[in-house]
């Protein structure tokens, strides 16, 4: 018991939770934005991979770190655009299109990586983002190490949560996005283009998702590996529901998942000799389901989620 407490009151633990949560924050915010506009984006796992690969490769080719972030976002936007065109004006199944985009983005990233780098036995490294040292804040007891020794992308993720919440709730564009996910007819009858708003939102959301991938290769690590996204995108889809499509709750959900994960690696070394390691690895998933059961009744679906909109059709 005391070990568990020790873990929970350690600043390093919370720093790890925030680090692990960062790609999830990008992912869940991106997924949430798309779904708020009524489009489920199962392309997320592939968009993560594309962001991870493209961002890393741009830096490797000399674009600079922020140049890499931009390229990652553009890669995300590109695949988002494919998904958006297939699902919005063409009204195709969002499930298949999403999984198709995942297959496409993943295999294209792998193919490009391998074709560009056929002969690497050890993957090339880049100079990744370093934790920021913010004078004053980073030296605070507990909070300093827990919050203020993160890389810039973590702060970008946190900023993005606030910006997303602001845009969604406070700007005309945000209102239009919310409306188009609830009742596209309401948007059209007010003279706005359902397609433009949906496509734009999905493209933007996908660009955000891709940053989650970029974080993996440019912040959490400094090289690209096949399979390194490792299901993180799917977790974000789950977190979106958990968050009831709200940015604030999405942040909490991602942090919670990060904390579960940071907790399980620590617990594993504590009591790992009695319990199979898989039990610990299951923990974040099991706890996510448990958390979902608690919030389930209050889940507030965007009513037009998954429903394609065709003008003038019954």
């Amino acid at each position, binding site marked *: 018991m005391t070990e568990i407490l020790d873990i929970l009151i*350690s600043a*390093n*633990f919370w720093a*790890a939770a925030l*680090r*692990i949560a960062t*790609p999830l924050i990008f992912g869940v915010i991106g997924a949430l934005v798309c779904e708020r506009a009524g489009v489920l984006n199962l392309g997320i796992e592939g968009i993560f991979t594309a962001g991870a690969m493209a961002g890393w490769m741009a830096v490797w080719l000399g674009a600079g770190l922020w140049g890499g972030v931009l390229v990652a976002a553009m890669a995300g936007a590109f695949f988002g655009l494919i998904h958006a065109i297939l699902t919005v004006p063409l009204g195709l199944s969002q499930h298949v299109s999403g999984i198709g985009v995942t297959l496409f983005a993943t295999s294209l990233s792998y193919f490009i990586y391998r074709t560009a780098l056929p*002969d*690497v*036995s*050890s*993957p090339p*490294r880049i100079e990744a983002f370093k934790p920021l040292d913010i004078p004053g804040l980073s030296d605070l007891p507990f909070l300093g190490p827990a919050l203020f020794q993160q890389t810039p992308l973590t702060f970008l993720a946190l900023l993005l949560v606030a910006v997303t919440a602001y845009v969604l709730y406070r700007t005309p564009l945000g209102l239009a996005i919310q409306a188009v996910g609830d009742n596209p007819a309401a948007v059209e009858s007010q003279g706005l283009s359902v397609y433009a708003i949906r496509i734009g939102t999905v493209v933007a959301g996908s660009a955000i998702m891709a940053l989650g991938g970029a974080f*993996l290769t440019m912040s*959490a*690590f*400094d*090289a690209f*590996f*096949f*399979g*390194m996204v*490792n299901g993180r995108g799917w977790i974000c889809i789950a977190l979106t529901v958990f968050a009831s499509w709200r940015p604030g709750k999405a942040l909490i959900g991602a942090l919670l998942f990060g904390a579960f*994960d*940071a907790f399980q*690696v*620590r617990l*594993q*070394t*504590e009591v*790992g*000799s009695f319990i199979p*390691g*898989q039990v610990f*690895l299951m923990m974040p998933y099991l706890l996510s389901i448990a958390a979902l059961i608690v919030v389930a009744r209050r889940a507030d679906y965007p009513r037009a989620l998954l429903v394609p909109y065709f003008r003038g059709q019954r």
Partner: protein
Amino acid sequence: ADPVKVAAIYTVPVEQQWVSRIDKALKAAQERGEITYTFSENVANTDYERVMREYAEQGMDLVVGEAFAVERAARKVAAEYPDTAFLMGSSFGPAQPNFAVFDNWIHEPSYLSGMIAGATTKSNVIGMVGGYAIPEVNRLMNAFMEGATSVNPDVKFLVTFINSWYDPPKAKEAAFAMIDKGADILYAERFGVSDAAKEKGILAIGNVIDTASDYPGTILSSALWHMEPTIDKAIGLVASDTFEPADFGPYSFMSYGGGSFVVDESLAPADAVSAAKAKEQEILDGLFRVNVNDSEPKSTM
């Protein structure tokens, strides 16, 4: 003579440390003009048998691969193509007429790197992060632990498996967790662990591949695997038409040059280095045998 036609089948991408050693040895042979080399990577378990057959049908002289999770199927295919030589990573023995096996038998240098680590640690806590608890990994970890305790009975181990071969961010997090627990040396079975060590200014033990130049001042010691002796031997036999199904495992032993031990003498205590070197000589002279223990290592804290 014509170059030997070699195909390799990997269940993981060639970046994976293990596979990269095979790939490296084969590419070197190709450079020398001894072989033509082609490979399929990331082959799914369910496709493995088909890929083997396709290469055999293409008239490959030698097929190199990992039979670990496809043992029975691989042996069956090999039996159906007696004209092709198969050299497969396997925990089992060779089989007539053409199925030879190898494995990464670098438990010896692992033991030696353990000796260095055991003597160097100040906190007496060593963290070990692995991908999966498979025999090929367990064996090296166990040898390492034995080496460490042989010089320092007080040393304790933290063990975590991250359940993935390529999730460096995750491996890094596991390593950070161990540093929080007081580990001052990390056994880097996966990419990501040495990065955590470097970031936190502690030491790491390399495994299979040499990463010392990527992490200057961080890699204390490494147990390296060299596939060249194994591959070159097999190619030679195939080229001279004298390939026999045998256990090529010993070619990974230190005495054949298949395994080697390196230590950064600026980071390790001098007496530890000399003790390890002495033990290395004993191993090479056949005076000391490192135990082989394939069971899953557990934390001892």
